């Protein structure tokens, strides 16, 4: 009897949660989604600096990794979707890229002519719709993303250059695909994942999530003093 009551008591808050249908959403995801919907006014004139002077400008302005306010972007602009909408948006880890590249001028390659404008602007401020007859040499937002990302990924021989390397695939409902025992333990879950995603499993072993090595954009002062990574310490290796 007592057990039953306890179960019921436990269920009450749960049911209440279901009734109000409050689905938890990751705040940073939501923020990124909202941001992606925004469009900003078109910057007509830009300062045609070469990359070196651009770099010096950014350094003079004292812009560094600490100024990267947005960690993560969802590249899902209505500017692109207006013409066609074939792919899932790309999740772009802004801060991580900034830390890896360590040169803001690589992407923020020009600045607005207006001296009062910010040093770094959004891609979509200068690159909007393609084939604008008034600015024929200005490439559109979609091409700007693809050219910038792919060229660098190729040059650095790092990062994906195929479509699904960046664009999300439509993920099928895994409830039907995966059969797990009731109350599975973490190892059972991992095993179920690896049954299909074995290459991703291999890849994972090379990432910072496993090695606890690599750029550390999020630690205070970007310190790298973690000694006991999963890859290095047997105790931690599960």
């Amino acid at each position: 009897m007592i057990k039953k009551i306890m179960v019921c008591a436990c269920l009450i808050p749960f049911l209440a949660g279901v009734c109000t249908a409050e689905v938890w959403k990751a705040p940073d995801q939501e923020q990124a989604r909202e941001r992606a919907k925004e469009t900003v006014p078109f910057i007509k004139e830009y300062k045609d600096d070469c990359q070196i002077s651009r770099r010096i400008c950014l350094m003079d302005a004292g812009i560094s990794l600490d100024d990267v306010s947005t960690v993560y972007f969802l590249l899902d602009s209505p500017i692109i979707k207006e013409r066609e909408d074939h792919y899932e948006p790309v999740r772009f880890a802004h801060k991580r890229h900034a830390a890896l590249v360590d040169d803001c001028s690589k992407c923020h390659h020009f600045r607005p002519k207006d001296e009062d404008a910010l040093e770094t602007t959004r891609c979509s401020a200068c690159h909007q719709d393609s084939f604008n007859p008034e600015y024929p040499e200005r490439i559109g937002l979609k091409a700007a993303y693809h050219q910038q990302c792919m060229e660098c990924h190729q040059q650095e021989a790092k990062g994906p250059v195929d479509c699904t390397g960046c664009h999300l695939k439509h993920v099928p409902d895994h409830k039907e695909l995966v059969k797990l025992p009731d109350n599975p333990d973490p190892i059972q879950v991992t095993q179920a994942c690896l049954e299909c995603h074995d290459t991703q499993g291999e890849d994972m072993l090379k990432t910072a999530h496993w090695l606890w090595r690599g750029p550390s954009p999020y630690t205070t002062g970007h310190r790298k003093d973690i000694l006991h990574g999963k890859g290095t310490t047997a105790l931690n290796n599960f």
Partner: protein
Amino acid sequence: MQITRRHFFGVMGAAGASVAVRPPTGHAWQSKAPPDPFGCLVDLTRCVGCRKCEEACAEVNGLPEPERVNCQCTIFEKDRRPDHDAYTVVNRYYTGKVDEFDKPVPTYAKVQCMHCQDPACVSACIVGALTKDETGTVRYDVTRCIGCRYCMVACPFEIPAYEYHDPITPKVMKCTFCYDRISKQGGVPGCATICPTEAITFGRRETLLEVAKKRLKENPARYLPHIYGEKEVGGTSWMYLSGVPFEQVNLPALPETPSPKLSETVQHSLFTYLWSPILLFGVLGGLMAWFNKNDNPPDKGGA
């Protein structure tokens, strides 16, 4: 009956002289190119070989889905040409270009109708099934086509294909420049819309030439200093920029004279004032008279 050498040269000389002194025709060849056509600038240094343009082209033109759309592993092993199932195809070329690790770098090139300013096919078509439109499109009208396939022979880029498999209603098949889209305000061809890297830039031909020249000037190391299609066969609506020689990506070296200029000049000068048929029948009549005169006397002997 003998035709002596002297006679022969006499007759030929007369014919030659009449050609030489023929009255000035007053029909100097004139280009019929539209004044401000649309065009596309294909920048091979930007093309990544994703073949999305093939996919989009098939979709907007109601053609079958291209072979292995999402897999680029084996498709490039054969050199493909546009055919009755595909108005455009992308090919891969290894031209000897290498990256800093000495790895060969491929160059991808999209092929489709070039929409020449003075198209040879339009000039060759005897029923006017092909026309060059104000938008720059070389349009095909199946209701007029009699299936002679002269256009296929005339095209310097070997583009038009024919539905040989269809005995009842065969059509000549080639890129339509997405006429239905570009003739509307703000319309863009299917391939140019989808291209992820804007390797295909759509716009007015004049503007595109400026854009191309700007790219060449700003990036001399990236490009060969030539805009393919600016002058080739009198200019084409589709133009190319490349970092490797154009012949190596199957864009043939062609003269600057529009193909119809030569053929039409020959044709027109042949028929001005009907001098050539008059001359031909004159010569034939002369020869007949001459043979008759020569043939008669020996008959008398009954030899």
